[in-house]
């Protein structure tokens, strides 16, 4: 890097700070807003502190918004969906990466197709299919749909991860007498642990943030985002209360993000290879 003047460096940092500030301002503002007294017309301006910190809004939002229920639903969905999706992706990614079989290329491209098939194209028939098998308005529907939607990326990701293993590693395992199953779980999975962790984290985020599917398929026991959307629709004018609800819904994913931010970065930056 050439020598740049102190002012230039300072300006650049200021710019960076400004931009980052803009990025988080709405979120920070929402937290602040949630502490305002509840009630319509009590809108925080974003530039003044509330008269007092009304933590009670959170309790109210939690109760009235029924978040105990929607959180449970979201957690159940994620708890089943994430391991299922990751395991299926590991299995298929392994198959594609290490095995030769007829039509493997075609099958792989079929999965890649799934990366660009939008949910909107399949939502209509899915609705009627799900209803036909009696799973409408159940968490199972959501789980199944999310998993099937997620495996496209997961397979792509795990296949790439397994392909990055030196071929001699697999050959040594073959000579040592390991079956493909043992090779997968005892050698390849430990080898690909960072990739698997990244996939898990990204899959969790996708599951927690999923809204459209939840909207269509789990009306009576909504997930957290859906619960928030309904809540916000009912109490539009009560900014403080709605903000509290939003913060509540944001917390789990925020925590996951902070703890696993390295994996997130890695996943989004390298995984954006799908283009």
């Amino acid at each position: 890097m050439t020598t740049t003047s102190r002012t230039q460096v300072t300006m650049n940092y200021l710019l960076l700070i400004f931009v980052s500030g803009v990025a988080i301002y709405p979120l920070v503002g929402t937290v602040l807003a949630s502490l305002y007294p509840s009630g319509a017309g009590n809108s925080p301006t974003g530039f003044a502190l509330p008269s007092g910190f009304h933590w009670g809004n959170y309790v109210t939002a939690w109760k009235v918004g029924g978040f105990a229920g929607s959180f449970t639903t979201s957690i159940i969905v994620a708890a089943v969906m994430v391991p299922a999706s990751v395991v299926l992706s590991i299995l298929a990614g392994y198959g594609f990466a290490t095995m030769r079989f007829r039509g493997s290329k075609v099958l792989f491209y079929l999965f890649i197709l799934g990366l660009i098939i939008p949910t909107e194209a399949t939502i209509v028939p899915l609705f009627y299919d799900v209803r036909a098998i009696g799973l409408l308005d159940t968490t199972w529907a959501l789980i199944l749909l999310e998993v099937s939607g997620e495996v496209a990326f997961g397979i792509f990701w795990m296949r790439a991860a397994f392909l990055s293993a030196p071929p001699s590693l697999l050959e040594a395992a073959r000579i040592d007498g390991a079956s493909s199953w043992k090779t997968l779980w005892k050698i390849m999975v430990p080898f690909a642990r960072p990739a698997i962790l990244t996939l898990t984290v990204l899959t969790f985020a996708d599951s927690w943030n999923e809204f459209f599917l939840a909207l269509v398929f789990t009306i009576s026991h909504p997930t957290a985002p859906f619960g928030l959307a309904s809540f916000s629709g009912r109490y539009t004018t009560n900014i403080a209360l709605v903000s509290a609800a939003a913060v509540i819904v944001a917390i789990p994913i925020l925590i996951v993000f902070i703890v696993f931010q390295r994996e997130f970065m890695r996943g989004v930056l390298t995984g954006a290879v799908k283009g």
Partner: protein
Amino acid sequence: MDAEPSVASRAVAVGSRRRPERLPGEARRIGYLYIAPAFILYAAFNLLPLGQGVNTSFYDWDGITPGTWVGLHNYTGFFTDPAIRSGYVHVLILMVFYAFLPIVLGLFLAALLSRIRIRGLTFFRMLLFLPLVITDVVTAVAWTWVYDTHGPLNTVMNAVGLGHFIPSQGWLGDFNTALPAVGVFGLWGSFGFCLILFLAGVMKIPASLYEAARVDGANAVREFFAVTLPGLRYELQVVLVLSVIGTLDTFDEIYVLTYGGPGTATTVPAYLVWRRAFQSGEVGSAAALGITLMLIIFAVTYAINRLMERGAEP
């Protein structure tokens, strides 16, 4: 695993040229077993419905009573139905905010910031990433506050004397400002991602290229077009594809911010699909809409990739 004595192992593996070669002793079908669970699920809930969707799109159906065959009629709606047309127009407008602006700004800023060594980059990255990571519904709710009558945007505008520009129905309620308001939300959301991706890409450009350019007498602007931009071609491609597809797919924030309103000012194709399928009983049309959307996404992805790859040849 068989171990037949192989006098006959002059097996010039008949047809081995067509089949992928099998290693000695390898179970032939095992690959299928590993693929199967994922594929079954995928085929059942993605591929099959796709086919069914195509089928449904040829009918005029309200979801309850039997539908009537209308052939490609639903697809002509792309040209004739004003709601659909305006939906795509809206998406095109949104693309300016969701794709074009973030990319331009991101490129510009990345170029600026690349000249210095940034400390605490991880921290800034985390902040810039937040809009992308946090649930869309949550961030949309946050922005309803930003646009609120007494919210920060209006407070600022009043403070600087631009108060008379504030629409009376609120930013999200006014016919003219609703769509741009959604757009600004999208800009806010995409920008951090673009910046991070471009910054990462810029750091991969070898310093020697910049030095060579400088020796050749290039100023900052020329450097940008001669070194930075080409060096970011890959990232540009990725961001372009992701943001354009992302815009075509937009749903969550429309639902939360405007319900497609006021009127149809912010209706986008994805929202139309939902509305027609689940609210107004135009299921066949919704199916066609979904299929069309998918085809457009395919075409756009393909076009962008071809364009960017062709630009790779100097």
